[in-house]
């Protein structure tokens, strides 16, 4: 913050210059974190699978279009074997990537949006609002996520409407997304709030300068950019958590059997007794994918956190 006043245009140009330098600076530093780069590579791979499953393995196979015999071990025809209906595990796993990643993504968006908005508002406004919002946040932090999810699932389905589609997403998936979002935003809110608090302190001068700027403006233009780094790093970790939660919820039978995410595939492997039958190919591919994706997110999240979080950098 300099005290020399700049013209509007100069200010904008300066901002862009800083932004570009910031980006290349960031790219350079991130590029040197090889764990992060490997993580990004894995994620790009899975994103491709999720974006173009039909190009890669053809349309999702169903009970009627299953090409093989049930539980065939891996072969040339079925590189990952077949499931209990004779569907190719390769086909299922790739399509599972799409479903799992979409659920993970949307749940993350819900979580981070909720968490960021509440965190910023709470941190910026302070006082009663802060106390109130943080009480709620703490309340959600102590609720047992998983049991709450189990109880919420039927309630949300009832509220959403059984055969409603929200933006083309069937309500069964909406339920899982909302359940994950509602039960995991609190820790994000906590983290963002504490950062927002410290930014606010630093922003006092700037705030004084923005005469007439309303609270919304200040939060959006000044606080938000300053906590964005934290939001990004947190988002990546939330994504990993969302995928794990989806898997666990689906494993105990809350998934949509018509939209086989990796968790749903693992559930049907368990219920059809695949582990006991030695049909390892029925659960090893989805399990491996889950571990790889979560691992990749964790690596990227860790790297991002180190690169983006100035506090930690300064400390080292």
């Amino acid at each position: 913050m300099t005290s020399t006043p700049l013209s509007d245009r100069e200010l904008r140009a300066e901002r862009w210059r800083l932004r570009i330098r910031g980006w290349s600076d960031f790219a350079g530093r991130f590029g040197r974190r090889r764990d992060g780069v490997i993580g990004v590579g894995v994620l790009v791979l899975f994103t491709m699978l999720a974006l173009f499953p039909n190009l890669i393995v053809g349309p999702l196979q169903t009970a009627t279009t299953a090409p093989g015999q049930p539980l065939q071990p891996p072969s040339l025809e079925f590189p990952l074997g077949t499931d209990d209906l004779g569907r190719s595990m390769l086909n299922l796993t790739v399509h599972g990537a799409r479903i799992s990643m979409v659920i993970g993504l949307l749940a993350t968006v819900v979580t981070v949006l909720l968490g960021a908005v509440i965190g910023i508002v709470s941190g910026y406004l302070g006082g009663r609002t802060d106390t109130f919002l943080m009480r709620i946040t703490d309340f959600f932090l102590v609720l047992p996520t998983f049991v709450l999810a189990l109880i919420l699932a039927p309630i949300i389905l009832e509220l959403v409407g059984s055969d409603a589609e929200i933006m083309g997403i069937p309500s069964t998936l909406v339920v899982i997304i909302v359940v994950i979002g509602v039960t995991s935003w609190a820790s994000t809110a906590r983290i963002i709030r504490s950062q927002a608090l410290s930014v606010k302190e630093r922003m006092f001068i700037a705030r004084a300068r923005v005469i007439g700027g309303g609270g919304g403006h200040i939060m959006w233009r000044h606080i938000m950019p300053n906590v964005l780094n934290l939001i990004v790093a947190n988002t990546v970790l939330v994504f990993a958590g969302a995928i794990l939660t989806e898997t666990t919820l689906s494993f105990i039978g809350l998934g949509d059997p018509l939209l086989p995410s990796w968790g749903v595939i693992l559930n049907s492997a368990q219920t059809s007794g695949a582990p006991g039958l030695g049909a390892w190919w029925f659960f090893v591919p989805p399990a491996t994918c889950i571990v790889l994706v979560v691992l990749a997110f964790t690596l990227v999240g860790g790297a991002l956190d180190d690169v983006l979080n100035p506090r930690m950098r300064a400390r080292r």
Partner: protein
Amino acid sequence: MGSRYLARKIVQAILTIVFIVLLNFVLFRMMPGSPDRVLARNLPDAARAELRERWGLDQPLIPDQLVAYIGAIARGDLGSSYKFSNTPVTEVIGDRIWPTLILFGLGELIAIVVGLGLGAYSGWRRGGPVDYVGNGFSLILYSMPYFVIGMILLIVFATTLGWFPTSGMFSLGHRFDSPVEQIADFAWHLFLPLMTVAIGLIGQYSILMRSSIIDTLTEDYVTTAKAKGLTDGRVLRSHALPNARLPAVTLIAINLGYVIAGAITVEVVFGWPGIGTLTVTALNARDYPVLQGIFLLLSISVVIANLAADLIYGYLDPRVRT
């Protein structure tokens, strides 16, 4: 530690519990499917009416049901299970809480000891072979759902090698000659699920401990201590470890809240008769009183664990007293 700090924390905890109790009432009533029809689809009308009366569902929601509910909670009465007809919820849960406590208590203990130890050593010998392997493993374990770990252990050590039983808590129909033998039988059944829990938790603790150690090692006073010529072990023990304890305590408290998620899947895989399998049973049977009881029990224990963590935190780190 300031008694005002203590008092405030306790008041907050009590307030939270009150909210949880109210939320429990609301959630319960919002559940779709009227319990008398969910129990069994073809219950005769007379039986349904009698059940509604017995469960107090024929009363108006507010105030009658709310008053009855709060009165019952105050008496410690969580109502009766739907599925296990007329069995008090406290009894149903009471039967199943001990297996989970033992499983997760021991699992946490092992994970804390091994995980924190591994993390501390990895952090201390950063870049060494133990760090490479240990941290690689920790990261993978951290990314694995419990039930995947459980499935692998089950297939390898129970199904294929036959070293351990596949399910249950005791050998059924076996007459034990002595308590020692019975405990041994229990331990034998406990081993695989326990290992699953411990392995699933080790990753987190190890990663956390490693990074706090690394953070601490770069602090000035540690550098000073090293410069003073203190031995590595002494620096670790007297400076690095104590400071790295704080985040670990928090994580342990937070983990309690997530115990059930892990418990459900581990217990399902190993047929362990704890709260996790009970939750699934209650869920499948739409046994809402039992679900609500579990919800209440868990959230209150997390509140208490958090309170304890806060107090321990305040004790360990005098700076935290605000």
